[in-house]
């Protein structure tokens, strides 16, 4: 499966309070969280984003809290994947664990402009920019993380392990 969608650009150090403000954390309902996705960075984002769209950001995306509500809000807002120069550590783990594909690519993060049409191949880590007719590479995903994705997230991975 490949991910295809329009790029929404954000800057460096986008924190988890910008992704999902704590005032909405009195619930863990995914659809409810999605309604406020990226609200404090761009109040109109939840209305503007279309299924399949791709968030493209600078360094340290998802810094701050450990709240899994952040990747959940992004995933349920319909975003197919996130490309950033680098990710904050806990956000990186959480995204894999809940099944939100993310790609580290300083090259892509720098070259992509807002509104570019992108095609991402998670298998090879190749990011195609259909608007600019360019191609970038993402850092390969560690083997172990690929196993988690293949199992459909950490919980399935653990359940399988306990069964065997």
């Amino acid at each position: 499966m490949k991910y295809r969608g329009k790029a929404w650009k954000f800057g460096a150090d986008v924190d988890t309070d910008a992704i999902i403000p704590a005032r909405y954390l009195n619930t863990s309902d995914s659809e409810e969280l999605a309604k406020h996705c990226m609200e404090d960075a761009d109040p109109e984002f939840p209305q503007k984003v279309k299924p399949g769209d791709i968030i493209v950001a600078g360094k340290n995306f998802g810094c701050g809290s450990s709240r899994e509500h952040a990747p959940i809000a992004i995933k349920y807002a319909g975003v197919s994947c996130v490309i950033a120069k680098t990710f904050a550590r806990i956000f990186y783990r959480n995204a894999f664990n809940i099944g939100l594909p993310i790609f580290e690519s300083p090259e892509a993060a720098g070259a992509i402009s807002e509104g570019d049409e992108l095609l991402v191949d998670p298998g090879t880590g190749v990011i195609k920019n259909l608007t600019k007719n360019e191609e970038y590479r993402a850092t390969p995903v560690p083997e172990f993380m690929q196993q988690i994705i293949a199992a459909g997230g950490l919980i399935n991975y653990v359940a399988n392990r306990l069964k065997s």
Partner: protein
Amino acid sequence: MPMTITEKILAAHAGMDQVEPGQLINVKIDVALGNDITAPVAIREFEKIGVETVWDRDRVVLVPDHFVPNKDIKSAEQALLIRTFARKHNLINYFEVGHMGIEHCLLPEQGLVGPGDLIIGADSHTCTYGGLGAFSTGVGSTDLAAAMALGETWLKVPESIKFIFHGELPKWVSGKDLILYTIGQIGVDGALYMAMEFTGPVIEKLSMDGRLTMANMAVEAGAKNGIVPPDEVTRRYVEGRAKRSYRFYRSDPDAGYAEVYEFDVSQMEPQVAFPHLPENTRPVSEAGNVAIDQVVIGSCTNGRMEDLREAASILKGRKVNSNVRLIVIPGTQEIYRQMLREGLAEIFVEAGAAVSTPTCGPCLGGHMGILAKGERALATTNRNFVGRMGHPESEVYLAGPAVAAATAIMGKIAAPWEVA
């Protein structure tokens, strides 16, 4: 091969003689922690795994602290969910309102975490326990769910950065100022994915409260963990408190570091981080004229006894400025009781502060002191992101308790020597 303290603790918990940065390892954990925001999600995931109960009812620690005492119906339901789970699985370490505290103040105080431990918590400030010489790091709810079932987790061995603090700590300069200064130097991703090891003569003299404050904010530089080599100060703190045996690890003198920073602190001033990132630090004397509407003294960063004593020493016999709301939040019930015994609560209330039961409250813009549009707070907390304490157009300035107390009196960001 020589190893750092972080590598040694990880190796011991992986059942290996040796680990290297970059290696993915499976480790046994000593404690798994969740709170009222992250545990509800973890419990839901835990129930999908299909195990009867948690791996160890003594080692799964649940602390409702963010939105309790319940701020509204939704948060009451979240708290109920974890209470029900704690009862169902007979968890020993579930802490109810009236006994609880902010998780990262509570666990060290109760001796639930100790030197040499490996702790994961579904809260980013789990890195606090590095102050004790433990490896501890924040994870997400799904990681917590898996850990509650297995008593294990996977980790990537981080590279370490060593920070050596030389000189004499000037009056009014605390652990908070050291860590704010450090983050100001290296930036909010300056230690991304890495371990921050705090060492040197200044750290050796630093109190345990100060060390916990420093390790607490390691995540604000993007670090996986912060750690202080355990010593006599550590021993005095854990003796008679630790509920399990503990072990002191130290880095080998020739261990490998990605980087080594050396700072001389003798001329350092208390620091203030300006909006909207913890790296925007300045010495307090360069803060300029910044009027403040609310001052918060508390949180897992600075809600401990030493912090409250320092603030009280400045506020004693003085009044909070009529333009400021001062909110003081002790980190745990035990700290609250000690504050009463020492007469600090009286000093704060007499000065015109609102003194709260332990809670995270305003630190994350939860309740108990939310900012309106355009308002400014100075807080002893750890994050000043956009919207962190309320309206997206409000501002948060971070500082230690001494600057916070002086600011509350002056109504603008102020240095302690302006009032004390």
